[in-house]
């Protein structure tokens, strides 16, 4: 058991974490190396032009003019999915579009739950457990239930863990059941969902059905973090499965669409202020292109232009 434990508990997580860190940094580095030739903000609200014009509170962030307004726009995209909030569904028979917030709701539910669950996992890595981790865990697990098959019998239901599962199932089902979504879903879209489901389901099983030795998990987590992993590991099979899913997900991350989490910060339609007429944007690779200048134009249309000169450069109504 010790060899398998070392492989799954130490070697694979290290390799996966390495691929994750290097891969993500590499991709981010690649993006930041690319030029941004134009300011191509997508404006989703009234621009700043004449100061007295009606500009709502949200217009400032949907069509930001200053740096801080742009920063708020980005934060709203990242934390509140502002653009997805605007989502509408076109209904053909009625020839109208109606607001639809399901994707926004489950998307937001998934991401916020994932964040909470990640923060809760700090308790395995950090000793002493930081106050905010304890606080979030307590808040998350305010529901207590009695499980006869479990040791200890009294368990706190972690709401976000269940929400995570529900949201993932919705995100999966919509790709299978909705015709549009089925049409454009690629195998990689399902892979990401299955990996996440694997992580979540094994995690939930450990929490509510098949208990594992938490002390051992904690020793491993802290050992990994300190680059001093414990030897003679005898890990529970379910925990190893959980760890395998997590490692696969980490290693897969930089090569996949999951990079959207970093990419959103580089999106030029969202991270630039709508002020290109007030502040000239410079294209780093701009180069001159020869066009027709006035002299050439004049040569081509000399007669017309001379006649205009004779008119004194003014067009007047014809005398009747």
């Amino acid at each position, binding site marked *: 058991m010790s060899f398998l434990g070392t492989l799954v508990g130490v070697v694979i997580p290290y390799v996966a974490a390495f691929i994750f860190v290097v891969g993500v940094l590499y991709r981010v580095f690649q993006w930041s190396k*690319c*030029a941004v030739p134009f300011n191509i903000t997508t404006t989703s609200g009234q621009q700043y032009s004449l100061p007295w014009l009606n500009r709502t509170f949200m217009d400032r962030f949907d069509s930001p003019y200053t740096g801080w307004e742009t920063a708020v726009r980005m934060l709203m995209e990242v934390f509140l999915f502002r653009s997805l909030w605007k989502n509408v569904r076109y209904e053909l028979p009625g020839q109208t579009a109606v607001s639809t917030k399901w994707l926004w709701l489950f998307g937001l539910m998934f991401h916020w739950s994932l964040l909470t669950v990640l923060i809760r996992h700090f308790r395995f890595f950090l000793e002493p457990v930081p106050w905010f981790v304890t606080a979030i865990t307590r808040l998350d697990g305010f529901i207590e239930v009695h499980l006869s098959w479990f040791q200890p019998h009294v368990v706190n239901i972690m709401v976000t863990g269940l929400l995570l599962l529900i949201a993932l199932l919705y995100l999966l089902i919509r790709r299978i059941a909705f015709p549009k979504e089925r049409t454009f879903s690629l195998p990689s879209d399902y892979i990401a969902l299955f990996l996440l489901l694997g992580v979540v389901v094994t995690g939930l099983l450990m929490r509510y059905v098949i208990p594992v030795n938490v002390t051992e998990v904690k020793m491993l987590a802290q050992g990994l973090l300190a680059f001093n992993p414990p030897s003679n590991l005898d890990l529970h099979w379910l925990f190893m499965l959980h760890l395998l899913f997590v490692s696969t997900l980490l290693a897969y991350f930089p090569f996949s669409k999951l990079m959207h989490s970093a990419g959103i910060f580089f*999106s030029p339609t969202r991270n630039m202020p709508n002020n290109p007429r007030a502040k000239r944007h410079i294209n780093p690779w701009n180069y001159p292109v020869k066009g027709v200048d006035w002299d050439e134009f004049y040569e081509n249309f000399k007669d017309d232009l001379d006649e205009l000169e004779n008119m004194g450069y003014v067009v007047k109504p014809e005398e009747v």
Partner: protein
Amino acid sequence: MSEQKFEDLEKFEIRQQFGNWRELLKPTTEMRKGYYSYAALLRDQEYLNLPYPREWNTLDEDWKLPPNWKEIIINKMDELRRKYRSFQVFMDICVRCGACADKCHYYIGTGDPKNMPVVRAELLRSIYRKYFTKSGKVFGEYAGARELTEDVIKEWFLYYFQCSECRRCSVFCPYGIDTAEITMLARELLASIGISQRFTLISAAACVRTGNHLGLNPGGVVNSIQYAVDDIKEITGVDIEVPVNKKGAEILFVTPSGDYFAQPHWFTFMGYLMIFHELGLDYTMSTYAAEGGNFGFFHSFEVAKKINQKIYKEAKRLGVKWILGGECGHMWRIKHQYMATYADDTYDDALKVLEEPVNPITGTVFENASSTKMVHILEFLADILKHKKLKIDKSRNDHLRVTHHDSCNIARGMGLLEEPRFVLKSVCNYYYDMPDHAIREKSYCCGSGAGLLADELFELRMRGGMPRAMAVKYAHEKYGVNHVTAACAIDRAAIPTLLQYWKLPVQMGGVTELVANAMVMKGESERDTDLRGNPLGEYLEVEV
């Protein structure tokens, strides 16, 4: 436009097609009438010095690609991903959540899954994966990657000219992925192997040569202005003078060339001239910079730059202080987000004469245009009307129930939403908005932007314009709306046909037209019609 098309309305159906990812990876090369664009003319390719100029035909099996076309495309893609962060990021981060799918008016109107923005991007992304990502190289089609073949090129030409670069999908995308950007880069790739669309290139070449998309010689521009001042005299009895190529004027006025004689652009054009006269503005028009729009923008970076440079050069030559721009859509996307960036030393050169724009009538400083020195006509008019510098008789628009169509580029590439509404409410008694999902940043495209106004795309345009037409229909039925305004020359060309196709008794025109309708000029004669000759007063019944 062929007349018999209007009869087909009864037969209109949207065939919803749902497939799977494997089917989507297979290139569609079926060139259906009404959906594919014509190949560029050799004449225009040669005039613009484009690579691999040749005569070719979209319907031919052989598109006569250069022998090493594949290498050219891959190298160009490699170049573009370094040059445009948007390209690389948008290729990498899409999660295919599908929020964009039914936001595209072409998808709504055609039901073709390849018109979903997410799939339109996948047409390019699948190639990017194959040649530039590890997962694509290793797992091939299971990673959503596919081989670059001639059929893929044909598919690109088919579908990247079924996108009007309206950016509606980009508003709803949680990462702001902008299909307009992807379409522009795909067209850039196509251009690198000598594949261009006829309509955009005719206009772009004409614009480089003559200074406007219509290919009018300077004499033609002057003649148009002549007709306009004659018409104005006939309608209002007022003699107005229009300075052209006048050195030392304070303001250079630039407008899309459609305004010079297309209908209903014409009334907006007269409107500009009447208002400038009434204000006593010290301005000039130009025959060299006679075009605000830039069809090069729908082709490639270089052609766009060729056309873009004229305005700053002309501003410098004439010695104006600032530039005022007429009602146009993509023109304003460019003026707002691209013009000063495109311009290299021509900008610095122009700065020797240009100053921060100040409205000479009201003294308002246009701080938001302090760098490019270019102000939108509706910003200018809003300021004028706010300060009550024009005598307005709102009742002259009482025969109209007005609604406003937010043009894609100025709504989502500029954020000019309240200005037209303020202007319209200042000059009309009856203004109504269309439903929320169809206006402001959520506005539906007219279906003909970004080079898709071509005649051969008629069916696509009428289908793509359907959501807009249905929103107008709603406003017509609910409020009796009989007049749609739009501050865009392409809209003014596309929407009248669209309204006719969908049998809506509604007319359309520019915003400035209605200002001029309501404006009481000094020394004008008794008015009993609007600029179009419609009688004032009674509700106007528009013929279908």
